[in-house]
Each structure stands twice: as structure tokens, then as C-alpha cells.
């Protein structure tokens, strides 16, 4: 009986209600505005036939609710435990004959009450409106209960995190700030660590670990998704567990906390180094991340580590000491610097052998090869969101391919390619292994394509790879093609339509032969494009295949069918062509002037081509749309007087006669 009267004190609760009751009241009003009011508003305009599709209560005003959920609990925790953060009130409250445990119970109980009751009241009113107004909504009474449950869970979670932070700091401002930082911390630190690993370890596949689950651990984003994806059982359990952990931890810390911690940045002296070096470490990673992504140079990354960690260290020190004159504490930074230097050096010199690690060839069951990690991720469901018509990244099982990928990887380990200057064309190479014992391993590199083409070739030109690469070549999934439509690359204008089954059949044979024989250069996109081929399947789906200039079988087939000149611009249709060097004029690209084509005929530094064979070669070698890699611009003037067609030659595709004449 005695303990009961001691643990609940009316005076404290009355006082607390005077102090924070308004938060509960405003909380209720805001929730009423967020849900029931919206229903009433909808009811009054029910004739207008614009009923929104609300599948549940989160969809009524999700982002507004998110703001409520992430502000009111924090505000409440700050105000309720404000007494601990001010010296005079901390002394007063702790001079009273009430145990800290009892104070804590009473404050948190009132806090939980002021969060839960408004939600429950709102849910009840919503329920009444739902049954009485008879409006057209897609949610049911169960959704209302679920909404109330999930709101309470999230609000209590945020509240108890804020309470816990309040126990560790002696300043209300920091309590608020650190609460939000902590809610973002798990996701933030994961991104920072993973991204920084890629700068220190060549081949580290950060993207593989940075999969979309990261969003789930940011409570704010998780809440925003509640409308689409309610809490799974395990999530509910995790949040409940975290609430209990925060609660128990807070109580324990409160009993350890000194009254005199009020107004100190950190309530426990042991937290000072943790905070100081923690902030320095995180800002260091931010610095590395920033310069790593913008400059991609190791020197800049080191610069980022240094400057940001210095700033972070001293800012943390300033917060702790509550003065900006802390620069005499540089010794503390020195320890940090030395420690980071050692860790960084060990990582950089690959103490764990990460960069050199490669499984035994015999242990490999299958390899993964491509340009993204996404398909390597072990997906739980078989659901595929979309079909890739060109499957760049895929698993390979054939011995020869396993060996070629393995050789490629060995070369990469030896070369340790670092992301270099942007002028050379680079590609991501992602290599993964699934070993016979079930282990998985993945590496990701960024390499200059040209230098490694000989490694790409045997893999990408292999039958196994090709078959998976082009959807059209796969054994499964392609329905019979009913119609073929060829379109121009630039305008999308229809040129040739084939509907005759035999014709379609023989066209497809030619196209498939081209795809099967396609060279790695063509696959990596270094050739021009004639147009687009649309294949209408019997199930109504349309398959698109790019008609590349390298597809000789298609070309031959069109010629035989006398469709070539319909399908694309041919030398016969071109009167003449003019080639000019692609140089900037007054800092602007040549093509920026809308009238440059008209002005060309007056210029002397151009080549005029009339020979049909040369025009044909130019047609085949040129590519569009134009960009800065094109050294020359060519304009084809048609015999029928229609608009001239533009193209360009890059370094590799310039016909020799042009190079000779236009130096």
C-alpha cells in the first residue's frame, strides 16, 4: 500500500498535466483534422463524384500524419523531462521524497497516455463516422483498428527513443536534435561505411549491401510506406522490443544519472569521448563520401577525411564544453588521427586479403557477370517486376564461361583499377560467385572498356551469355510473333510492316542469326543504329529489338525483299553529303546554331561527298544523336529534297578518306 501511494503521486501528475497537457490536446486536434475531418469533408462533397481511393487511413493524409508522429512524441518527451535539464527544477524535483523510479514511471505513463488516448479517440470517432456517414471508401473497420495500432506503436517508439536520449543529455535542444539523428543513424552509418569501403577497397560491391532494405530501418520512411505495406509481424515485434529496450535503459540511466547533469551537454562523463570521437568519425566518413562522389580522386578523399573529421571533432568538443574556444584540445584529435591512420592504412593495404581474394576455380558452381549487383541479390520471392530485354547481368554455368570470368577477375585483381578520369569510357564490371558449398562472393569494379575488351569478348560472345542476354533468343517466354514493325530511330516513323507469317518467320531467322553472331563491340553499343524493330507477339506483348547497323543478315534479308530503301536511308536516296569537323565556335557546339546547315555550303573547310560507295560507307559508320565524342559531323542531303539527315563519326569509326582530307 505504501509503495503504491509512493509510486503514484497526484500532485506530480496534476503538475505535469498543467505543464504538458496542451501537447496532448493539440495532438488530439491535429489527429482529428488529419482523419475524421477529412471524412466529413468528403461527405459534404459526395455529389461531386471525386471520391479519392483511400485503401486505408494512412492514405488519407499520410505525410501529415508522419509529421505528427515524428514531432509530438519528441516534443512531449522534451517537455515531460524538462525538469531534469534545468538546474533549479532538477534540484527541486530530486529533493522531493519520491524515488527516481517513481518519477520516471509517472512521467512516462503520462506521456504514453497523452499519445495513445488521442489516437484511440480519433479512431473511435472515425469508426462512428465510418458507420454513420455511409461514404464510399475502400477501407474497412479493421483498417481503422490497424491504423490506431500502428500509430500508437510508432508514436510510443519515437517517444521512448526521445526519453532515452533525454537521459543521456542535459540539454533539451540536444535531446531533440540527437533523437532525430539517432533515428537516422543506423541507415546513415551503413551508407557512409559501405560507400567509404569502396574508396579503400578496390572491388568492394557497396551496392550489393545497400539494397532497398535500408529504407526499412529509417522509421520515418517506414512510416510513410505503412499505407502500402503494413507492419509485418516481425516488425511489430522489433518495434515493441525496441520500446522495451529504450524504457529499461532509460530507467537504468536515470537512476545512475546525477542531478547536477542538468544543463550539461552529456549527462555521463563516459559518453564524452564516445560522442566526440563518434562525431569525428561520422563527419570523416561524410567528408570522404562527398569528395569520393564529386572528385573521385584519392587525394581529395583524404582531404575530405582530414578536414571533415577536424571540423566534426571540434564541433563536438564545442557542444560538450559549451564554448567555441576549444582549440587547445588538439591533442585529443591527434589520438583520433593516429588511430584512423592505422585503420586506414591497414584497410588500404588490405590486411584481410579482401582485394586479392578469389575462390578456387574448382569450387565455383556458377559465376555471375554483368554491370550491376542487383540480380545477384538473393531474392526471396520469384516475383520479377519487369522483364529485361537485354539481360546484361546474369549467372553463367558453363565451364568455359566460368573460366573466362575467373580470368577476367584475376586480371582485375592484378590491375586494381581505380575509377579514373571521366574522359575515357568506363563500365562497371560486377563479378559474383556461387560456390559449391553455397557461399556467395561479389566484387564490383569500374574499368575502361577498351582496355578490357579482350576479356569481355569471350564471355559476351559466348552462346550461353547471348541466349540469356537477348530475350528473343531465350527458350522460354517468347510467344509466336504475329507482326514485325520497323521504325526510324529519330522520328519513330513506321517504315516497314510485315504481317505475312512466312515473311515474319524468315525475317526472325535473319534477326536471330544477327543477334547470335553479334560482336562484343556492337553489344557494348559502339555502333550506329538504323532504327527500332517491334515484334508483336500473339499474347499482345510487344518486344523491341534495336536495329543496329552491324546486323548484316537483316540487311541482306531486306535487300532480297526489296524493302531496304523503305526501311532506311540508303546511298541511292542520298544526293550528296557534307562532312565538317565538330569544333566549338565561340565556346558553343557547332550544332547550337540552328542555321549552321545552310551556312556549310559557303564554307571551304568541309568535304563534299558524291561517290555512292563512299556515301554508303558513311551511312554505315556514322551514328546519332550527336555528342561531344563525335569528331566529325556529316549531313546527308536526300535526292527527294526532304530534310537532310545528321550523323557523326567518333574516333573509331571515321572513314579513312575523311580523315585524310580533313586534318
Amino acid at each position, binding site marked *: 500500500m505504501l509503495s503504491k501511494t509512493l509510486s503514484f503521486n497526484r500532485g506530480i501528475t496534476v503538475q505535469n498535466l498543467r505543464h504538458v497537457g496542451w501537447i496532448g490536446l493539440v495532438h488530439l486536434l491535429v489527429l482529428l483534422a488529419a482523419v475524421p475531418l477529412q471524412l466529413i469533408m468528403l461527405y459534404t462533397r459526395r455529389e461531386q463524384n471525386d471520391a479519392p481511393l483511400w485503401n486505408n487511413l494512412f492514405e488519407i493524409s499520410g505525410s501529415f500524419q508522419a509529421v505528427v508522429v515524428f514531432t509530438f512524441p519528441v516534443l512531449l518527451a522534451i517537455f515531460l523531462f524538462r525538469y531534469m535539464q534545468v538546474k533549479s527544477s532538477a*534540484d527541486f524535483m530530486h529533493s522531493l521524497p519520491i*524515488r527516481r523510479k517513481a518519477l520516471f514511471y509517472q512521467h512516462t505513463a503520462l506521456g504514453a497516455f497523452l499519445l495513445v488516448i488521442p489516437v484511440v479517440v480519433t479512431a473511435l470517432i472515425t469508426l462512428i463516422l465510418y458507420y454513420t456517414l455511409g461514404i464510399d471508401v475502400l477501407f474497412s473497420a479493421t483498417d481503422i483498428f490497424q491504423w490506431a495500432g500502428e500509430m500508437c506503436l510508432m508514436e510510443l517508439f519515437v517517444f521512448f527513443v526521445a526519453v532515452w536520449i533525454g537521459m543521456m543529455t542535459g540539454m533539451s535542444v540536444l535531446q531533440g536534435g540527437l533523437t532525430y539523428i539517432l533515428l537516422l543513424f543506423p541507415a546513415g552509418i551503413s551508407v557512409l561505411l559501405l560507400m567509404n569501403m569502396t574508396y579503400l577497397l578496390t572491388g568492394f560491391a557497396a551496392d550489393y549491401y545497400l539494397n532497398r532494405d535500408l529504407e526499412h530501418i529509417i522509421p520515418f520512411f517506414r512510416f510513410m510506406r505503412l499505407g502500402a505495406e503494413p507492419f509485418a509481424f516481425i516488425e511489430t515485434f522489433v518495434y515493441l522490443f525496441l520500446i522495451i529496450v529504450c524504457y529499461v535503459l532509460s530507467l537504468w540511466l536515470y537512476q545512475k544519472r546525477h542531478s547536477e547533469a542538468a544543463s550539461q551537454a552529456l549527462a555521463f562523463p563516459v559518453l564524452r569521448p564516445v560522442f566526440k570521437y563518434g562525431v569525428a568519425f561520422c563527419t570523416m566518413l561524410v567528408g570522404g563520401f562527398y569528395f569520393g562522389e564529386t572528385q573521385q580522386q584519392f587525394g581529395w578523399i583524404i582531404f575530405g577525411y582530414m578536414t571533415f573529421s577536424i571540423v566534426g571533432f571540434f564541433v563536438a568538443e564545442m557542444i560538450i564544453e559549451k564554448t567555441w574556444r576549444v582549440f587547445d584540445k588538439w591533442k585529443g584529435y591527434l589520438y583520433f588521427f593516429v588511430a584512423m591512420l592505422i585503420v586506414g592504412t591497414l584497410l588500404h593495404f588490405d590486411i584481410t586479403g579482401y582485394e586479392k581474394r578469389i575462390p578456387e576455380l574448382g569450387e565455383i558452381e556458377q559465376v555471375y557477370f554483368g554491370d550491376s549487383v542487383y540480380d545477384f541479390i538473393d531474392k526471396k520471392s520469384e516475383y520479377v517486376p519487369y522483364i529485361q530485354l537485354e539481360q546484361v547481368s546474369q549467372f553463367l554455368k558453363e565451364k568455359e564461361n566460368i573460366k573466362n570470368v575467373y580470368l577476367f577477375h584475376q586480371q582485375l585483381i592484378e590491375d586494381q583499377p581505380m575509377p579514373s578520369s571521366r574522359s575515357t569510357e568506363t563500365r562497371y564490371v560486377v563479378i559474383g560467385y556461387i560456390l559449391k558449398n553455397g557461399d556467395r562472393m561479389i566484387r564490383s569494379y569500374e574499368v575502361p572498356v577498351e582496355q578490357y575488351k579482350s576479356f569481355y569478348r569471350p564471355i559476351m560472345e559466348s552462346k550461353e551469355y547471348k541466349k540469356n542476354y537477348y530475350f528473343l533468343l531465350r527458350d522460354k517466354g517468347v510467344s509466336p510473333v504475329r507482326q514485325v514493325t520497323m521504325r526510324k530511330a529519330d522520328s519513330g516513323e513506321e517504315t516497314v510492316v510485315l504481317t505475312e507469317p512466312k515473311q515474319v518467320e524468315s525475317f526472325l531467322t535473319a534477326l536471330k542469326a544477327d543477334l547470335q553472331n553479334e560482336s562484343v563491340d556492337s553489344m557494348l553499343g559502339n555502333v550506329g543504329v538504323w532504327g527500332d524493330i517491334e515484334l508483336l507477339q500473339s499474347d499482345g506483348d510487344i518486344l523491341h529489338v534495336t536495329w543496329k547497323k552491324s546486323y548484316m543478315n537483316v540487311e541482306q534479308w531486306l535487300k532480297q525483299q526489296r524493302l531496304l530503301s523503305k526501311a532506311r536511308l540508303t546511298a541511292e536516296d542520298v544526293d550528296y553529303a557534307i562532312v565538317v569537323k565538330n569544333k566549338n565556335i565561340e565556346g558553343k557546339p557547332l550544332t547550337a546554331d540552328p542555321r549552321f546547315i545552310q551556312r556549310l555550303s559557303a564554307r571551304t573547310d568541309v568535304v563534299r561527298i558524291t561517290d555512292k560507295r563512299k556515301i554508303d560507307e558513311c551511312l554505315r559508320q556514322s551514328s546519332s544523336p550527336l555528342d561531344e565524342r563525335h569528331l566529325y559531323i556529316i549531313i546527308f542531303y536526300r535526292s527527294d529534297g526532304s530534310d537532310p539527315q545528321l550523323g557523326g563519326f567518333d574516333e573509331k569509326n571515321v572513314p579513312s578518306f575523311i580523315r585524310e582530307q580533313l586534318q
Partner: protein
Amino acid sequence: MIEIINIGKEFDDLEAIKGINMHIQKGSIYGLLGSNGAGKTTLLKMIAGIYRPDRGTVKISREPVFENPNIKKRVLFLPDALYFFPHATIRQMADFYKSIYPSWSEERFARLQDVFPLDLHKKIHRMSKGMQRQAAFWLAFSVMPDVLILDEPLDGLDAVMRQKVKNLLVQDVAEREMTVVISSHNLREVEDLCDHIGILHQGELLIEKELDDLKADVHKIQVAFHGGIPARILNGLEIVYQEQRGSVLLCIVRGNKEQIISYINKFEPVIFDVLPLTLEEIFIYEMGDVGYAFENIIV
């Protein structure tokens, strides 16, 4: 009543209290004196169970104070910087105290309205500093605690109110055997109130005395003799301080008054007076030989 056993307290690098032992008897008024930063407030807050000592314990009625509601409901601490709930009136604060302290006397609260001419329903924050202090005393006396701890309590009160408060304190001590611990940097302020005095300096308790003892023990004497001061006379006295003005010898002597008088009379002095010492003088002489400056304690 209050036992302080070897307590110590540190704030970061600062050792505020360095191993203090004290014993305060029930029904006494203990004056804790010390200059600014001596550690008075820290010590009082540990006695009140607000601060947890880093070492040692504070016991009241043989039980530790810290986190002990049974003891703390009989103890009231009146801090230097007063605290009232934001926007609270005296009545609201009274209701709060009533809900917290079982010993609260509504009758006393009503009676004290005559002593403190304050508006019950006015917000305390709007009152002057002196009125706020009066309000604090009003509430404190109405709680009727067994132990009342006062940190620099008389600052901001006018002379009349000071006297009223002192009377109330003495009255409670006499009637209910309330124990009072009172801190001050001003000896004169508490001289007429305390029966025990402790002096705190840089976290250490320099001296702890019963005032009656002190006054009975030390005497100021003035003597003059025909033909100069006999050399032997000084040997038989415990002299704290001596000074010669012409043929007159002025000294502060420890010991029993009667014995000293009979001893001096043996030398047949021409002039012989035993003068009373102020508390201030006692401390200056007591402490003088320890070598500390006491100006700011005594003011």
C-alpha cells in the same frame, strides 16, 4: 540526527567536497559558513539527498538519505535559487506540497498568512525576489519538516521579515525539536541564531564548534602593571594573540574565566579587565593561526 561520514564529491576535475565528517544533533541549529565556492551548497544538497556523494554517506536518523523517500519526506531543502512550478500560485504550490509531504499542516499554513502578507492566488513568478523568498518560507514552515536545510536563506529579506523568519525558526526548534542546517557567507547574519558553527574552506571542514563553548573558552584581557609586565605572567596562560600598547597588555586567552582571573590577580595588576569577544573576533583569532583570510566570511 544527521551523520555525515567521510563524504566526498567531485565535479569533473574539481573536488568540491574532500572527505567531510560531521554530526548534527537533533534540535540544533547548525550554521555552515564559508566563502563563495567553499562547497556549502554542494554539502547541503548531499544532506538533502539531491546529490549522490561520490564517497561516504549521509544519514538522517541512521538511514541513508539518497533515494530514501521515508527520510526525505521529513526533510525540506530551501535552495539558494528558489524554484516554483512555472505560473504556479502560492495556493497551487501549497496543494502540491500537501500531496507530497504527509507532515503538511493546513492549519499552520492558514495561521502563517498573518506573518506573510502575500496574495495566495497571485502567480509567484510575478512577485518580487523578497516576496518569493517569503513564499518559500511560508511553504517550508507549513510542511513542518524534522530537518530544514536552508541555503543562504536570508538574502533578499528586509530586516523586519528576517527577524520574523528567525523567530519562526527558533520557535519550531524549541517546540518540535526541528533540526536546522543553515548556510551563509556572513557570520553576523547567523550569529544570533546558531548554536553550532562549522566553517568550510575549499571543500574541507576547518572547524566545528558549539558556540557556547567557544564563547566560554576564549577571553580578551587587558592588564597593566606598575613597573612593566612581569615576564613570568605569559607562561601560565594559553595565549592565542597578544599585543602591547604602551604599558597595557592586550591578549586573547583560552581557558576557564575564573582560573584566569585568579591567576592574573596574583600579579597585582593596576588595570585588569576581562572583555567579551564577538563571534567574529573569536573566529579571526581561532583561524588566524591557521593562516586563512576570513574577511569574506565575516563581512
